[in-house]
């Protein structure tokens, strides 16, 4: 977008955001659900703009987890005793909530892992090492997070698959026509982000999936930045695998989610062996559970799953469309404010963008920007965002990144802009 378009979009979004805040979405009320937000940092009110890295937790999630530990915690899928049964019911209820939230066909399509990164590694192992062979091609985009690059490189080094990379243009749009050119009968898997964590670009993932399927390739989507910010529908998208990070959706750390089409998951061998994933074990032979338990060896993150269930309830009650509209208003406002700063360059101005603003300044390194705005109470991410290839693409080693969440406000954007003004004063 050029400046005039951004300004026009910003005023339109401002009108929309105004409507939303007075009707469906009351950000002041929402903020009261997040205990951490009321504190001061370095004597200034906390302005938390590092939601792309991890989001804060509402009271509802904290209480659900405390309540589990205080009243019914026990191991799941084990004992016949009361607490184990209750914990199992709550753990499985969380799985069901996620299935409904993502519009999966069944809760059997929801696998709990240790992290989103582990979910991708699970697919690279259990699917990649079973169904891919030397010379098969995997298509990634230039803006993947390291978690959606390195597992495929390990697979490449192991079995000799070939990685092909879809470039992005100067504004951060995925070059779709280049994707179409890369697709060929050797393409067996497309592993692509839904929203770039470094640029905010929203990838047209539905079209990506459709064309991949036309070639007979499977698709894994890294939805870590998408699930917190927009409505995501597995049946509408048709992805074969879709992963997300619960801690970015206002839930706990220590757990990840892998959605996989049920019939596909059941063709995949286990990738870790242990308790809970077996039907029978003898020293001669073991037989395995179906998905999802086949992929959940060992005691899972029980209370974290329950906390995630509470987080899903929380965002569902607010409404993903309301959250998306609120954040879109913030994106346009922040883009307008920061674009006006002399010597500041926004990296990533894709046509379709989530509420992430990555930027560099002529006068100061991102790390120095981060330190200075921190003293104004503002938490932003500085660095390469675990996405070094896309940093290289724009000729920078790092950026400063403000990423917004459902509790972010325009006043917080103003505090960030003022703090950036101070960076200029100091370094300019």
């Amino acid at each position, binding site marked *: 977008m050029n400046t005039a378009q951004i300004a026009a979009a910003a005023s339109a979004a401002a009108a929309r955001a105004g409507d939303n805040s007075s009707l469906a979405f009351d950000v002041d009320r929402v903020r009261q659900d997040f205990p951490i937000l009321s504190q001061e940092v*370095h*004597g*200034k009110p906390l302005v938390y703009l590092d939601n792309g890295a991890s989001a804060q937790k509402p009271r509802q999630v904290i209480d659900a987890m405390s309540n589990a530990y205080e009243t019914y915690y026990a191991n799941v899928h084990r004992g016949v005793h009361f607490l184990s049964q209750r914990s199992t019911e709550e753990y499985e209820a969380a799985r069901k909530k996620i299935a409904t939230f993502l519009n999966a066909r069944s809760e059997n399509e929801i696998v709990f892992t240790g992290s989103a990164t582990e979910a991708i590694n699970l697919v690279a192992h259990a699917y990649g090492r079973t169904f891919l062979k030397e010379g098969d091609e995997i298509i990634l985009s230039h803006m993947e997070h390291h978690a959606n690059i390195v597992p495929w490189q390990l697979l490449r080094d192991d079995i000799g698959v070939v990685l092909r990379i879809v470039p992005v243009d100067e504004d951060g749009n995925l070059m779709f026509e280049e994707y179409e050119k890369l697709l060929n009968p050797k393409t067996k898997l497309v592993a692509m982000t839904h929203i770039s964590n470094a640029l905010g670009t929203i990838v047209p993932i539905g079209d990506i999936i459709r064309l991949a399927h036309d070639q007979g390739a499977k698709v894994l989507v890294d939805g870590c930045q998408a699930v917190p910010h927009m409505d995501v529908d597995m049946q509408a998208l048709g992805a074969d695998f879709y992963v997300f990070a619960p801690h970015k959706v206002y839930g706990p750390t220590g757990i990840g989610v892998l959605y996989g089409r049920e019939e596909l998951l059941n063709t995949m061998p286990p990738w870790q062996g242990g308790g809970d994933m077996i039907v029978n074990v003898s020293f001669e032979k073991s037989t395995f559970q179906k998905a999802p338990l086949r992929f959940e060896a060992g005691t899972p993150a029980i209370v974290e799953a329950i906390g995630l269930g509470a987080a899903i309830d929380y965002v569902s009650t607010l409404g993903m469309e309301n959250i998306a509209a609120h954040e879109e208003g913030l994106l346009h406002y922040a883009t307008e404010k920061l674009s006006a700063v002399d010597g500041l360059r926004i990296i990533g101005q894709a046509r379709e963008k989530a509420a992430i603003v990555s930027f560099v300044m002529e006068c*100061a*390194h*991102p*790390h*120095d920007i981060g*330190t*200075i705005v921190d*003293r*104004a109470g503002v938490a932003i991410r*500085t*660095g*390469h965002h675990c996405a*070094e290839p896309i*940093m290289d693409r724009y000729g920078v*080693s*790092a950026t400063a990144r403000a990423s917004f969440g459902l509790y972010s406000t325009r006043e917080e954007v103003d505090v960030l802009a003022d703090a950036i003004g101070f960076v200029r004063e*100091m*370094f300019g």
Partner: protein
Amino acid sequence: MLDDLRELYQEVILDHGKNPRNFRRPESFSREAVGNNPMCGDALVIYLSLDDDQTITDVAFQGKGCAISVASASMMTEVVKGMTVEKAEALFKAFHAMCTGDDDASQILDSFDEETVERLRMLAGVRQFPMRVKCATLAWHTMDAAVNGSHEISTE
């Protein structure tokens, strides 16, 4: 807010950050090492020239980084030139101790000449910013690696 930041980003540091001294790749040198700070993507190369007595006859660097890491590298090249390797290593330990707030160890600094000490103390402000200690010490770790024959180090 301002006092801490002004102490960290003193004029001298901002100047070295913007106009680093000895920022070049010498035509010849005895040792080189690459220093990476993976958390922020910073990378420096340090070039050392040593004579037969293990005295540093020239030291230069190239790379990219934040104001603190570039200024620290720049100031380091100025202070260690002319020192023996042994003395430069002792200075590294003292400087590191100063940055991490280890006052006993940083007293070793006092055994160095006043100008060197005064210059390095400019960076003592990082003690208030624990996340930035790696920035201030990156060049020194890299020099240490070059002296000890490592070609690449990481501060993670």
